[in-house]
């Protein structure tokens, strides 16, 4: 499902955080959102998922997100916030099953199809083995995977995830990205913010770089990940290379050395 944002501006407590952002997300692609802290990544994601009132227009599948009810929106867009909140020691299985809530209506029991979607999501995120454990007692990385499994179980055409890979070990970071690729392969629209440049360059079909509330660069990783762009957006120098699987990238230092002798 296409997600189309045009002319989106957001002000938070008097400060304009997004300045007239235009963005078009394609189904079947993993689009990565990059940018320094405070660039407006989370704000853009929250606006796209209808969590935040904004100026401008946001449409999913041709319908404005602002006119949808919360319940309808939740069957179209799954939103995984950056802050990982688990308030009660509920089991991993129960957390993932919460993902089916938008589809229940007034029905309160899980259908066979619901259970299969949850089992599939847990298998994808490698949390089937800990299904019975209280989610609050897991490590941060395990919680991240459980909450992603919850978002996957929501089974929506659009998935927006704010830093789902932070706090994961390298193997699980890679498998998290592989899961996102697989979901995109099923035709979903996947939008994910990341801080790890190499991970983003290697696993996303398209990268959007933000700085100071505007889109600074937008395109396939090979085109966007250039020294000039990284210098402009992050103020860093990096080694950028290519191999059979795509782009690799290693940040080396700051463009302006700010360390001074005392």
């Amino acid at each position, binding site marked *: 499902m296409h997600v189309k944002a045009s002319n989106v501006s957001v002000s938070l407590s008097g400060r304009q955080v997004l300045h007239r952002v235009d963005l078009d997300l394609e189904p079947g692609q993993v689009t990565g959102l990059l940018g320094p802290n405070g660039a407006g990544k989370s704000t853009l994601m929250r606006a796209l998922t209808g969590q935040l009132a904004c100026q401008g227009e946001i449409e999913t599948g041709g319908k404005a997100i602002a006119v949808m*009810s919360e*319940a309808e929106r939740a*069957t179209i867009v799954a939103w995984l916030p950056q802050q990982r909140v*688990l308030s009660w020691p509920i089991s991993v299985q129960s957390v993932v099953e*919460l993902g089916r809530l*938008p589809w229940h209506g007034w029905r309160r029991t899980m259908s066979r199809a619901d259970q299969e979607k949850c089992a599939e999501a847990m298998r994808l995120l490698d949390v089937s083995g800990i299904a019975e454990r209280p989610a609050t007692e897991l490590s941060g990385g395990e919680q991240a995977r459980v909450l992603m499994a*919850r978002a996957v179980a929501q089974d929506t055409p659009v998935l927006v995830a704010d830093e789902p890979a932070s706090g994961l070990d390298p193997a699980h970071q890679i498998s998290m990205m592989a899961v996102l690729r697989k979901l995109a392969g099923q035709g979903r629209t996947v939008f994910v913010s990341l801080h790890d440049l190499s991970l983003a360059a290697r696993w996303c079909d398209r990268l959007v770089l933000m700085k100071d509330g505007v889109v600074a660069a937008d395109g396939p990783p090979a085109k966007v990940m250039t020294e000039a762009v990284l210098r402009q957006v992050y103020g860093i120098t990096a080694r950028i290379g290519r191999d059979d699987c795509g782009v690799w990238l290693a940040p080396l230092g700051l463009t302006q050395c700010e360390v001074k002798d005392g």
Partner: protein
Amino acid sequence: MSRLRLISMLAVLVIAACALSLLIGPAQIGPMDSIAALVAGGNEAAMVIMREIRLPRALLAVLIGFSLGVAGAALQGMLRNPLAEPGIIGVSASASLGAVLLFYTGLAGASLLALPAGALAGAAASVLILLAISATQASTITLVLAGVALASLAGAMTSLVLNLSPNPYASYEIIFWLLGSLKDRSVDHVWLVIPLMLLGWAALWASSRTLDALSLGEEGASGLGANIPRARAMVVCGVALCVGAGTAVSGAIGFIGLIVPHLVRPLTNRLPSQLLLPAGLGGAALLTFADIVARTVIPERELNVGVVTALIGAPFFLWLVIRSRRELF
């Protein structure tokens, strides 16, 4: 433990408590005579005692206990805070204040509905204040402290209003409103609270799925299609109806909504929606037993049931605070 088994066990407990409550009292009536007087009539005096004194008392204990248990469980779910409870965070005390204010200022005349209306308004006002405090990302400790302050203020205001009233029984009344009692309640009181409580239970039940979604935080819940402002309003109304109605006829009874969800939660899958009914049944059983204790522990001298629940509940609360102090501070 399976949910069905838990609920049936708690239901049996409620029935047992209720039966015991009906059989105990200063008038010595044998068990068989009691049942006969209750259902079939017969002995005139026994019939009056059973139907007009003991039955309303037992029913009110069950209804109010159920409401306090459900309200405690729902508040804990809404605020995502295991220390939230209508008594501790000042909802019961504010309901008392509301009832006393309306009753003694003569604003609503001496109508039977003045008390519940005042109690509902008081309870709703305090829940709104607490929600406003918790909406700004307040920590557990801020919320509990604000609630304690609110409870103290409402208690002091209640005492003040009663002190200023020309009523010669004011000091007795203060004890009733601050510590609660089920003494000398009539069938009218039962009929008064039933519709209000049914509405309150329905409002809390209707918000139960949002309470589940709130386990993932407000943003997570809203991403799952929960309408948070609406759910918040439902919980406010539900808690106000449950606690307000109960307080209007029994005064403030504390700690039921704290103890019961804690005792019952480990026996459920810990989702807030799954806790509501068991917490209600547990609350009904606990308040009925507490009322039996209040009547029987000192012969010839009846305690206020709120004293009994506080004697059980306050040490329990302290233990919870000590156990969870790492999370609190």
